[in-house]
């Protein structure tokens, strides 16, 4: 049957398969499909930049137009990965510049990007359209200037939470006057003030602009001007939301908002002056995504704002929302799917707000579509977790961060094993879980038994013994990423489940009890896995084999050990035993 099918037709069929999983499945069907698929693959996602070498990707997929890649392990966000660890995108950019002249999109997360890289990107790909740098670092605003000046068809420039060395705001003025293609601009992470007139003109001439996320330096008084020039905006990130309270500024702003009929997402909101919040009233009913994670607004202003957004699907907010605010949300935002509550004062000893487990319980009970939660709080109980689990069996992502490590159920003083056990037992579709509080090996037994769809698990200060880790590695069938810190897990579980590591993207263990000897053993026995020891105390072989390593990062790869390791990272491989 396949022979009657011309390749172009098969390609056409493949073009309707958007997920990587489907494309991978298709490529493994038979020789001819493998060949056809690899020539028509246009998008590649590489979850770990060290899992494969650029040359291998290029050789297999010669006609790629969009590349998405991640570098450092997730725990880098919590400063657990020392500077200089790696994640350099340079070799990729160099290889792709030669091989993919028609490349249109580059999306990177937690990678080191230099100004030189940005310049190469700007000058090598004449049809370049999309650049997304999420939590990246290593570049300055000069690199941005290069991109702005040279990418004639730039559609998206999104810097997310990158760390940019901000030399000046002048980069924005490098967009040529004939650039009209911009549809999305996110410069919220930058500090310097850009030329407002340049910004205004840019916004005015880019009629396709849908997303505009300003930085803090753009004053509120000028926001109305921008909105007027871009009434078609779908997502807006304000600058600082404060100004002297003046009625003309207010009415100007309110009027400008009222013209933006398509606005669905709002963010920004540094330094909020609550009196200006009602200026947004006209758009609230259309808002589906609201990011107030920088907004130090408190009740009742906060509650007033949020309860007006009845069609909210995603809400990111500081714990100023308190239990009362969450109750109000539970009552009015019935479409809520994702909730993130961040701590306003995580290092304070005493709670500064009245946010407890009750807030999360309210939202879980009241919002039937809630499926993604990130919740920081100071107390939790098994009873609450059980209620949440029973209310929301459709939960997909559940991340609970009780601020004090190893905090028990505050009512019974027991571990939170049964609570989290209820979560994994009831929420059968759970893909991501982060746990906190007092947890014994028991919770891992629950996880290994029930969390069959779990793909990512984050553990800190939990467990009693290797048995805990063993439950997870042997039971979680879908596990791709496991990150562990400060847990009493040693060699046994890891070595016994060594082969599991080849089926996962990565494993991170820091401040655990994995010995250097075990790392060597792992490295020797798993040729398709890189076992990297991160130890800032000096070479691990200067200490006995039984000495635990500081940090361990294990990831599967088809490209062998990496060549860009800094002095504090050692790869364990088959030669390790010979070398040391």
């Amino acid at each position, binding site marked *: 049957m396949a022979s009657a099918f011309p390749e172009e037709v098969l390609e056409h069929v493949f073009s309707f398969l958007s997920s990587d999983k489907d494309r991978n499945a298709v490529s493994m069907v038979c020789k001819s499909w493998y*060949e056809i698929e690899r020539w028509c693959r246009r998008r590649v996602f590489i979850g770990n930049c060290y899992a494969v070498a650029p040359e291998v990707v290029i050789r297999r997929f010669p006609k790629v137009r969009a590349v998405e890649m991640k570098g450092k392990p997730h725990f880098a966000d919590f400063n657990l990965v020392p500077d200089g660890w790696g994640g350099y995108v340079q070799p990729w950019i160099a290889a792709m510049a030669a091989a993919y002249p028609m490349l249109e999109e580059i999306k990177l997360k937690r990678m080191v990007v230099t100004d030189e890289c940005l310049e190469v990107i700007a000058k090598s790909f004449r049809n370049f359209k999309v650049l997304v740098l999420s939590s990246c670092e290593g570049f300055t605003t000069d690199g941005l200037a290069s991109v702005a000046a040279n990418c004639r068809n730039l559609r998206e420039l999104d810097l997310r939470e990158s760390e940019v060395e901000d030399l000046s705001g002048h980069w924005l003025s490098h967009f040529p006057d004939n650039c009209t293609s911009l549809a999305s601009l996110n410069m919220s992470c930058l500090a310097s003030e850009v030329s407002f007139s340049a910004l205004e003109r840019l916004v005015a001439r880019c009629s396709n602009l849908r997303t505009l996320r300003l930085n803090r330096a753009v004053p509120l008084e000028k926001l109305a001007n921008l909105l007027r020039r871009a009434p078609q905006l779908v997502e807006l990130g304000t600058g600082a939301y404060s100004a002297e309270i003046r009625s003309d500024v207010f009415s100007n702003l309110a009027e400008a908002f009222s013209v933006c009929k398509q606005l669905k997402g709002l963010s920004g909101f540094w330094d909020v002056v609550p009196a200006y919040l009602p200026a947004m009233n006209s758009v609230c009913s259309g808002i589906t995504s609201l990011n107030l994670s920088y907004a130090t607004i408190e009740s009742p202003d906060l509650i007033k704002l949020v309860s007006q957004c009845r069609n909210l699907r995603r809400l990111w907010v500081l714990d100023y929302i308190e239990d009362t605010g969450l109750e109000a949300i539970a009552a009015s935002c019935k479409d809520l799917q994702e909730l993130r509550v961040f701590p306003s004062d995580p290092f304070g000893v005493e709670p500064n707000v009245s946010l407890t487990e009750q807030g999360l319980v309210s939202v879980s009970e009241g919002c039937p579509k809630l499926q993604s939660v990130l919740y920081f709080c100071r107390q939790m109980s098994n009873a609450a977790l059980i209620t949440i689990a029973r209310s929301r069996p459709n939960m997909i992502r559940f991340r609970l961060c009780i601020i004090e490590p190893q905090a028990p159920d505050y009512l019974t003083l027991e571990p939170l094993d049964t609570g989290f056990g209820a979560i994994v037992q009831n929420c059968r579709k759970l893909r991501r879980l982060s746990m906190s509080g007092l947890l014994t090996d028991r919770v891992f037994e629950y996880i290994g038994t029930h969390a069959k769809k779990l793909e990512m698990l984050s553990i800190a200060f939990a467990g009693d013994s290797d*048995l805990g880790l063993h439950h997870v590695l042997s039971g979680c069938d879908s596990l791709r990423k496991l990150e562990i810190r400060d847990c009493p897990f040693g060699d046994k579980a890891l070595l*016994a489940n060594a082969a599991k590591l080849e089926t996962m993207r990565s494993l991170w263990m820091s401040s655990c009890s994995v010995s250097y000897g075990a790392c060597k053993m792992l490295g020797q026995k798993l040729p398709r896995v890189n076992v990297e020891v991160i130890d800032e105390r000096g070479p691990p072989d200067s200490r006995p084999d039984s000495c635990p390593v500081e940090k361990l990062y294990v990831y599967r790869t088809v490209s062998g050990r990496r060549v860009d390791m800094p002095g504090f990272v050692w790869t364990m491989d088959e030669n390790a035993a010979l070398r040391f």
Partner: protein
Amino acid sequence: MTEADSEIIKPEMLKVYVWLQTSDGSIQQVEQEVAMYCPFICHEIHSGMGSSKNYPISLPSRVNPAMLSLILDYCRFHQVPGRSNKERKSFDEKFVRMDTKRLCELTSAADSLQLKPLVDLTSRALARVIEGKSPEEIREIFHLPDDLTEEEKLEPIKNTMDDPRIRLLNRLYARKRKELKERERLKNVETEEEHADDRSVDDLLSFINGGNEDSKGSRTSKNKKKNRKRKDHDKTAPLNCISTSSSNSSSNNAVNMNKKESNEPAVYGKLPPDLRNATKMLDIENDRFDPEDEFDDCDLDDDIDPALKEKIDREVEDFARRLNSDWPERMQEILSLGQDRRPLQLTINGNGSLRRFTSLDQRQK
């Protein structure tokens, strides 16, 4: 002549037909306005073909009478200008409800007639057939050969699910090492010094694995799961479990776990299809049953005789090779572990080479 009269002599009576010939030689007559919906036919008509039975339009070979009939149904519906988008969509949805084989034939036929909207429609339908399926399933549906053996492939670079073959491999490794250890232990008279830690871990494990004779409930429920995986083998308890009932730890943890298992055998009810398939592919040489949860608690840096070690590795390789492996490179690596390299005995493709598949000419697109 009144208007009413002229209505009688309407174009219906003067309908134009074209003659089409399919690959089997048969010729049929079709309304021109319907047939012209196909660009291929349209071109042919403009070149002067198809106006009589003696000069029919020869349709491409991929268009047999059955497919032509379907295509004409499609054209007949869509060429009527007055229809709403909703109507068309509804028709399309019903139209593509057919078995995959016909869908393929239809896509092919539509493509040869350059009827792009129908190609799109059927292609999307085929994509939906493919979505979410494993390579094996896709192969079965489309009757495709399983000829990828030692392709140089990237591992699936994004999403990967736990591969049952790895787990089985792991199990085998663990078992082999254990056997070795047993042998060593029997050889040496010294008693093993086990830390209190290890023992409790073992005991707890044995509870989970159902090694405890006293707790029949838990054992059955746990073994149920394992036995499903090993359809061909007996359902007796594992013979080489670590500990006996007498050494069971009295920790609350273990007891509670026990209870829990016997109360919830349903947990072990469902076996994922992958595992079933993997089982089929396995030729398990040893009929002794190893609980999957068992792990090797001995110090792996022990003094296992290198020759024995090599033997273990070789046996594992044999085992792995027998799997329907799409990891030829990986197998190569495992085989070349350590200093002594054994000669490679991977299955070789027809060309006698292990090289990357290059039989399709590289197309310059």
